[in-house]
């Protein structure tokens, strides 16, 4: 592991969080927050209590998505692998949309999204199995099919939903951190830590995948078990990210690329650094979303896509 990469990642994340705390559609005065009495102090504390959990949620969701993407790219040896491409996010979105359509309380939708993500991963994995082995080519194809199917389901759900329900659903689908609460952050944290720990622990084994699956097996890696564990952990991270923040694209695809081009392809560095960089990216994107067109908000998915597509094109051009 390159310590410099991790240190730099942490420093950037802290910087982004501090900046994001001071940026927004409404001015937050640190003086009022620290010493303010009366109305100014109250307003400052209110803003801080809204902004702090939102920044924390942005960091966790960004980290989860980027780490899931990095691990899947290593596993599939395919730079296009991404939780969205493999259908996991689509499954999560369908789960939450169906829960909303069934009139279930909004509190149920994270659970439904997680169930959808898990079901999608399982379905895609089953489709990709061949003779008891997870075939990597088939996995990508199965993800493609799953995505087409989930888009159709989502379109159907929108058509059936009544005007009011569709409004909340559409907003959620675009990805939003607007209703972040300390409780949500607390609920997301154990999943994020578990998934991240499993993936970082698998980093050394993932390194051996890059020399080829047969070689990895020859070097003593239980390849099937590694594939299953990594696939499930990445699904868990994606599912909870979608459950708590809706569909935010490009983070899982983009961040690992950027980190790889800066620090190389050693998974022991790449995975934790991707988590930190993904967290930093989403914290910054959320600050832009809050500040750009106040008192309204830009959808965060639009920001990540607007940043992501050109950067991706640039990375593509740089690659020999």
């Amino acid at each position, binding site marked *: 592991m390159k310590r410099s990469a991790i240190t730099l990642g942490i420093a950037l994340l802290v910087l982004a969080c501090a900046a994001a705390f001071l940026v*927004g*559609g*409404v001015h937050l005065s640190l003086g009022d927050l620290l010493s303010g009495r009366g109305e100014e102090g109250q*307003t400052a504390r*209110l*803003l801080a209590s*809204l*902004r702090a959990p939102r920044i924390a949620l942005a960091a966790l969701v960004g980290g989860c998505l980027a780490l899931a993407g990095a691990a899947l790219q290593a596993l599939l040896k395919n730079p296009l692998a991404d939780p969205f491409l493999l259908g996991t996010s689509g499954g999560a979105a369908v789960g939450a949309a169906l829960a909303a359509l069934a009139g279930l309380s*909004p509190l149920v939708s994270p659970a439904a999204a997680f169930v959808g993500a898990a079901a999608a991963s399982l379905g895609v994995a089953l489709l990709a199995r061949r003779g008891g082995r997870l075939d990597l080519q088939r996995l990508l194809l199965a993800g493609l099919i799953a995505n087409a199917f989930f888009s159709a389901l989502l379109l159907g759900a929108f*058509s059936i939903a*009544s*005007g*009011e329900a569709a*409004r*909340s659903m559409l*907003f959620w689908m675009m990805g*939003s951190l*607007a*209703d972040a609460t300390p409780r949500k952050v607390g609920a997301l944290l154990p999943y994020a830590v578990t998934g991240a720990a499993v993936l970082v622990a698998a980093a050394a084994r993932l390194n051996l995948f890059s020399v080829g699956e047969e070689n990895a097996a020859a070097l003593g890696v239980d390849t099937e078990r590694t594939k299953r564990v990594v696939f499930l952990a990445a699904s868990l991270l994606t599912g909870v990210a979608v459950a708590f923040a809706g569909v935010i694209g490009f983070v899982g695809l983009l961040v690992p690329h950027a980190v790889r081009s800066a620090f190389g392809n050693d998974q022991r560095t790449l995975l934790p650094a991707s988590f930190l960089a993904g967290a930093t990216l989403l914290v910054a994107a959320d600050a832009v979303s*809050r500040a750009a067109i*106040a*008192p*309204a*908000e830009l959808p965060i998915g639009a920001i990540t896509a607007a940043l992501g597509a050109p950067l991706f094109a640039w990375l593509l051009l740089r690659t020999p």
Partner: protein
Amino acid sequence: MSCKLISVLASAAILVACRAPERVASPASPHRVVTLAPNLTEIVFALGAGDALVGVSEYSDFPEAARRVPRVGGLEVDPEKVAALHPDLVLAMAEGTARGAVSSMQAAGLPVAVIPSGSLDAVLAGIRQVGERLGRTAEAERLTRELERRRAEVARRVAGRRRPRTLLLVWPDPPQAAGGGTFLDDLLREAGADNVVAARPGWPVLSPEWVATAPVEVLVIPDSDQTREAYARASASGALSRGPIARARVVRLDESALTRPGPRVFDMLERLAESLS
């Protein structure tokens, strides 16, 4: 004969068969009318032409008699259903979401009239336009003159009053407000309120931070069985539970009358002006 030739001939036959029919102008007093929005249904009834309706949009529930007219779809209008009713006049909203359906109906030669609703003036102009198309100019003139009189009366009453800073939310989660250039912005201003999001055009979705810190004195919300629970939730633990807005005076106005740019919106104008006095 080669396959190519067959397919060319077949396409030609289809083209001839599908050629757009001559556009039919609606008669001077149509008797098969379809409305594509609930406010248009209300206008037709208010002009005394409810009997001519053969199809209405899904949410047309006022007046009571409108519930018995066949439905042609909600936000997604089904052009085939409309065509099957052989209407001699189709009324659509200019600010609606069914633009695709409207243009395909126009292309199919249906006599579609597009009625404006983007301001209170536009609502009155729309009533006059519907009156012209229905051959009920005198009724429309009488109705709009009466509405204008009530509107002027409200203006006279609120003149010189202090204008409370007001926010009108059309939906609480995420909070979406009536911004500038909408008929509800007109309604707020003419009822003696100061719309705090008048500077933002359209229907902006507001950020939680802004909602929590905005100096709102009066909160106007549309009230119906469908909206009540969502607003209660937002007030208890959501976007409306923090800051000045949580302490603001809440004015509840009937949802269907408030959010549909039809004649009843002027009832709401009077009601709001009265609540603010």
